[in-house]
C-alpha cells in the first residue's frame, strides 16, 4: 500500500535519511526502531509530507505523493501523530478532533468519528470542552492519535508516541495502537522504546544513521546484536 524507495532527506550536506526504503501493507503494523539521531523522525515526516526528500520515491496505493503539496497528503489516506504531539493548544479537545476531520471526505462522518474516538479513549469524552493545552501528557497523546483517526486514514503514522510518558501509560498506549490496527488501519510506528515497539509489531525495520540496516520479524531482530550495539554501545 505504501512504498518508500531510496528516500534521502538532507539538512545541508549531511543527510538525516540516506537511501531508506520501506513498505507498509494494507492493514499492517510496521515498526521502525533505532537510536536517537538515527533519522526516524525525519523519515516519518518525509512520508507525512511535512518534510521534502531531495531524492527517492514515495507512493501510496500507486499515487506518487512527492508531486503533491503538503495539504493534499491526507486526501490519500495518510494521517500523522507527530513527535511531541503538536496539538493545537489554542483549541479545545473537540475542536482538535474536528480539525482532524477537516478534509471533505472525513467531514461527512464527523459525528460518528468523534463517537468512535471517544469509545477508544474514554478519557477524552469527559474533557471534550477542555483546552488541549491543559491535558496531561498521556491524555495529549491520546488526543493526538484521536485527531489523526478523525481523518479516516488508511495509514496512521506515529512518531515516538511514548516520549515523556510514564511506563504504565505507555503500555496502555500500545494496547490501543494494536486495537486501532485491529480495526483495519495500517500503522507505521517509529520508536526509541524498543521493547514496547517490538511487542506489538508484525514487521520491523532497524534504522541507524539514516539507513535501514535490518528488517524482519520482531523476535528475530530483538535477538540480533544490532539492537544491543546500536542502543547500548556494547559489542
Amino acid at each position: 500500500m505504501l512504498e518508500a524507495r531510496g528516500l534521502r532527506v538532507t539538512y545541508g550536506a549531511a543527510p538525516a535519511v540516506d537511501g531508506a526504503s520501506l513498505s507498509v501493507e494494507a492493514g499492517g503494523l510496521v515498526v521502525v526502531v533505532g537510536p536517537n539521531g538515527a533519522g526516524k523522525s525525519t523519515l516519518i515526516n518525509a512520508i507525512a509530507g511535512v518534510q521534502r526528500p531531495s531524492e527517492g520515491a514515495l507512493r501510496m496505493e500507486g499515487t506518487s505523493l512527492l508531486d503533491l503539496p503538503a495539504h493534499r497528503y491526507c486526501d490519500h489516506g495518510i494521517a500523522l501523530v507527530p513527535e511531541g504531539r503538536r496539538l493545537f493548544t489554542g483549541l479545545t479537545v473537540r475542536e482538535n478532533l474536528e480539525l482532524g476531520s477537516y478534509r471533505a471526505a472525513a467531514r461527512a462522518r464527523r459525528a460518528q468519528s468523534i463517537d468512535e474516538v471517544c469509545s477508544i479513549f474514554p478519557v477524552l469524552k469527559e474533557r471534550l470542552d477542555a483546552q488541549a493545552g491543559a491535558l496531561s501528557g498521556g491524555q495529549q497523546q491520546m488526543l493526538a492519535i484521536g485527531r489523526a483517526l478523525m481523518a479516516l486514514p488508511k495509514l496512521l503514522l506515529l512518531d515516538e508516541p511514548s516520549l515523556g510518558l510514564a511506563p504504565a501509560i505507555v503500555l496502555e498506549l500500545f494496547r490501543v495502537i494494536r486495537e486501532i490496527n485491529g480495526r483495519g488501519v495500517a500503522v507505521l510506528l517509529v520508536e526509541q522504546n524498543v521493547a514496547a515497539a517490538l511487542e506489538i509489531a508484525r514487521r520491523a525495520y532497524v534504522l541507524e544513521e539514516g539507513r535501514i540496516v535490518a528488517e524482519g520479524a520482531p523476535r528475530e531482530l530483538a535477538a540480533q546484536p544490532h539492537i544491543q550495539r546500536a542502543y547500548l554501545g556494547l559489542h
Partner: protein
Amino acid sequence: MPSATLLGQSVLSGVFIGALYGLLGLGLSLSWGLLRQVNLAHFALAFLGGYLTFQLAGRLDPFVTLAVTVPLFFVAGIALHWFLSRYAANMLNTLVVTFGLTTIIEAAIQRIWTADFQRMESIYGAIRWKVGAFYIPFPELATLLLAMLLCGATWALLRFTDFGRAARAMTEDAPMAAAFGVNEKRVGYVISGLAAAFAAIAGVCLALTHTLAPVQIYAWMGVVFAAVMIGGLGSALGPLLAGILIGVSEALTMAVTAPTWAPLVSFSLLIAIILFRPARF
C-alpha cells in the same frame, strides 16, 4: 462635577466612538493576529472606502455603496496578502511596504478629493432619536449595530466553522494544519480579503459620522492599535469591547477634565497591559 445627563450622554457617545474603534480594529486584529502581518495601510484603506462612499453618495444610498466597495476591497486584500507574503518577509519590511502603500493611497485621495475636510451629506445625518434625556443619532447607532454584527459574525466564524478552526490552527502550527488538509495560502487570502472588506465597511461608517480629510488617516492609528492590543490579537470581539472601554473612558475623562487628557487613557491602559500581562501576546 457634570450632571448625570451629561455624564450619561458622554458614556453614550463613548460607546458610539468605541464601536468605530472596534470596527476599524477588527480587520487589523485579524491580519495581525492570524497572519502575523501588521498592516499599516488598513487605515488608509478605510478612509479610501469612506471617500468612495462620499463620492457615490449623490447617486446611491451610502449603505448601498457597500455592494461596490466590499467586493472590490476583498480582492484588494487578497492582492495585498499575495504581495506581502512574496516580498515582505519580516515585520520591518511589512511595515515599510504598508506604510508606502498608505502614502500612495493618501496622495491619491488628496489628488482626487483635495486636502480639505469633506462632510458627506446624507439623509441619515439628520435622523436622531430622543430616548429619555439622551440623544441617539442614527449614523452612530448604525455604526454600533454594524460593529456588533460584524464582530459577532466574525467571532462565530472563528469559533464555529471549519474555516475558523483551520485559521486558528494554522496560526499556531501551519505545517501540522497542512498535514490535516488546511491550505495555508487559501486561508491567508480569505482572511486578508475579509480584513480589507471590513475596512470598506468601517469607511462607510467613518463617512457617515465624521468629516473626512487625508490627514485624519494618521489620527486613528494610535488609538485603534491600542484597542486591538488590549482586546487581544486575533480576537473578533476583543477590539470592540476594548474600543468601547477606551471610548467611554475617554468620554468620561473629557467630561470631567479637559478633552486634551483623553488620549492618556487608552495609551496608559495599553502600557499597563503590555507591562503586566505580556504573555497575552
